[in-house]
C-alpha cells in the first residue's frame, strides 16, 4: 500500500512538473505571493523572454 501511495505521489509530481504547475508553485514561493491572475501573468512574463522548451520530432 505504501509503495502504491509512493508511486502515485511520484506520478503526480511528474505530471505537475511536465504541466508547469510545480514551476508556478516555485515562482509563488520565490516571490512570496499567493496565486492570482496577476501572479500568473507575471509568471508568464518571466518565462516569455526565454525560448520555449524544445519538443522533439
Amino acid at each position, binding site marked *: 500500500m505504501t509503495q502504491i501511495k509512493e508511486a502515485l505521489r511520484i506520478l503526480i509530481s511528474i505530471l505537475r*512538473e511536465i504541466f508547469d504547475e510545480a514551476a508556478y508553485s516555485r515562482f509563488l514561493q520565490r516571490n512570496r505571493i499567493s*496565486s492570482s491572475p496577476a*501572479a500568473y501573468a507575471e509568471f508568464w512574463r518571466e518565462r516569455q523572454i526565454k*525560448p520555449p522548451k*524544445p519538443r522533439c520530432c
Partner: protein
Amino acid sequence: MLDGMNRPLSILVWAVVSLLAATATAVIAVHRSEPINALWLVTAATCCYALGYRFYSKFIAARILAVDALRATPAERLENGRDFLVTNKWVVFGHHFAAIAGPGPLVGPVLAAQFGYLPGTLWVLAGAVFAGCVQDFVILLFSVRRDGKSLTEMAKEETGVVGGLVAYAAVIAILIILLAVIALVVVNALKDSPWGTFTIAMTIPIALLMGLYLRRIRPGKVLQVSGLGFLLVLLAIWGGQWISQHPAPAQVFTLSAQTLAISIIVYAFAASVVPVWLLLAPRDYLSTFVKLGTIGLLGIGIVAIHPTLHMPAFTRFVDGTGPVFAGKIFPFAFITIACGAISGFHSLISSGTTPKLVARETETRIVGYGAMMAESAVAVMAIIAACVLQPGVYFAINSPAGVVGQTAQAATATISNWGFPVTAADMQALAHAVGEQTLFNRTGGAPAFAVGMAHIFSQSLGGGTLMALWYHFAVMFEALFILTILDAGTRVARFMIQDALGHIYKPLGRTSWYPSIIFTSALIVAAWGYFLWQGVKDPLGGINSLWPLFGIANQLLATVALCVATTIIIKMHRAKYAAVTLIPLVWLVAVTFTASWHKILDPNPRVGFLAQARALASAPATSATARLIFNNHLDAAVTGLLLVMVALVLFESARQWIGVISGRQEARVKETPFVMTRLTEERA
C-alpha cells in the same frame, strides 16, 4: 532492483532474460512462412532494452564516464528555483521523455514498414541500445559536467569554432526541414477529411479557452484545465462525425492540400507571434496530456490484443523500388527511422533543460539512456500498428497517386500485381468504417498509423462500431502532436535567428520587440512554408523527397553530437573505449553520406534530385515544370550543404583526436571543477 539480488539469482534471472531476447529476436528474424504475433516483437524489445540498460549502460557509466554520485550537479550548485533545480529522478525522466517523444517514432517506422517488419524492428532495437540511448546518455552527462551547456556551446569548446557553427547551422536546417515535413504529414492526414479537419480546427479555440481559463479563472491549475480540454477534444471528435454526415458543413471543412497548407502556415505564424500563455502553452499541455495517455493506452492495447502482423518480414521493395519512398534498404531504412533508433534532435534536449534538473550524476543513466529506451518502445508500437494492416491496404494508403495510378481500380490493380492483394471494395469498406470518403494516397504515415491504431483499439474497446471514432482519435492525436511542434519549433527557431541577427543589428536580438518578432517569425515560417508548399505540389507526394532530407539533417545533428562525445571521451584519456561512440558515428557517417550521394546523384529520377530535374526537363513542359526543376535543384543543394557540414565537423574532430592521441595536443576537457555534493539521500 535486480542489482540488489544475491549473485546466483541475479545470474539466473539475466540468463533467462538473455535467452528470451535471443529466442524472440531469432523468431522475428528467421520466421518466414506465416504471419507472426506482435508479442514476439514486444518480448524481443523488452528483453533487449533490459539487457542494454543493465549491462551496456552500466559499463559506459562505470568504465568510460566514471559517473560520480558525490560530484555536485549544476542543479545543486546553481539552484535558483527557475532553470536550475534539484529534481526527483523520475520527475526528470518524465519531463525528458515528454520532450523527446514526438510524432517521429510513430511516422518513421510506419513509412519504413514498406521494407517489411524486420528491417525497421532490428534497426530500432540495435540502433536504440547501441547508438540512440548512448548518445542521449553521454551528451546529458557531459552537459551536466559543464553547467548544463548546450550542444552548440560544447561543440564550440571541444571541437573548435567550426564544430560550433556547424551545430548551429544544423539545428536551424533541421528545424526548417522538420517543420515542413511534419506539416506535410498533417496536410496529408487532413486533406478532404471534414471530420479530421473540424476536430483539429476545434483544438485552436479549445487551447485559447484553456489559456484564458488559466489566466483569469484558475491560475496555474494546468492539470485540471488539461483534463477539461481533453473532454472538449473528445466532444470535438464526436462533433466531427456529425459534421462529416451533413453535406453543408462537411463542404466547409473539406479542404484541399493547398488550402490546408496555407492555413497551417498562417496558423504557425500567428502562434509564433501571440503570447505563449494564450495558445502555445495550453496546446502543449493538451498535446502532452493526450500523448502520454494514448501511448500508454496503445501499449496496453497491443499487449492485451497481441495482434498478428500481416506484413511479411521483407517485401520486394528492399531493392529500392518502393512506392512509399524510393531507395534501397541501405541507407534509406536508417534515414527514415530516426527518432526510434537515434535522433540528433534528442541531443538538444539532453543539453537543454534536462541537465539543469538532474540531482546526481548517477541519475543521468536512467534519464538519458532509459528515456530513449521508452521512446524506442513507442517506435516498436508504431511498427506493430503499421504491420497489423494487410499489406495491400498499407500500400494503398501510403502510395502516392503518381506511383500507383489515379483511380481506385488502377491503384488496387497495381498493388495486387506487386503480390499484395487488395480490392477497391475492400478499401471503400475500410474508408466507410473509419468515416472517410477515401483512404487512397494518404501518404505521410499518419493515416496508416491511425488505421492500424484504430484496428487495435477497436478490437479491445467498442468493436468495429467505434472504429471511425478511434481512427479520428488517432488522427487528432498525431495532428495535435505535430501542431504543438510547429508552434514550439517556429518559436525556438525564431529565438535562434533573433540571437544571430542581434549581432548585426542589436534591436533585432530583442525577443520582446514586435518588429523583430514579426520579421523573424515571417522569415522562419516562409522557410519551412516553402518546403511544405513544394511537398504539397510534388506529384510523388512530397514525403518521397522531404522525409529523407529530414532524416539526413537529423542524423547530421546526431553525427555532430557523437563527434563531440568522442572528442570528450578521448580527451578524458578513455581513448580505448572511444568505440562506444565512434562505431555509431562511423555507421551514421556511412548512412548519411550514402543517402546524400543517392539523393543528389542517383540516376533514378525517383531517388536522385538531379535525375528528377533532368527527367522533368526532357518531359513535355507544363506550367509547373520550371518550379519543380528549381525545387529539385534546391533540394540537391541543401543535401550537398548538409554533406559538406558533416565532412567539416568530422575533419575538425578527427584533427583533435589525432592531436590528443599522438600527444601533440594537450588533452584538456572544459569541465566544471569538482565540487563535493551537499545533498542528503532524502533530498536527492
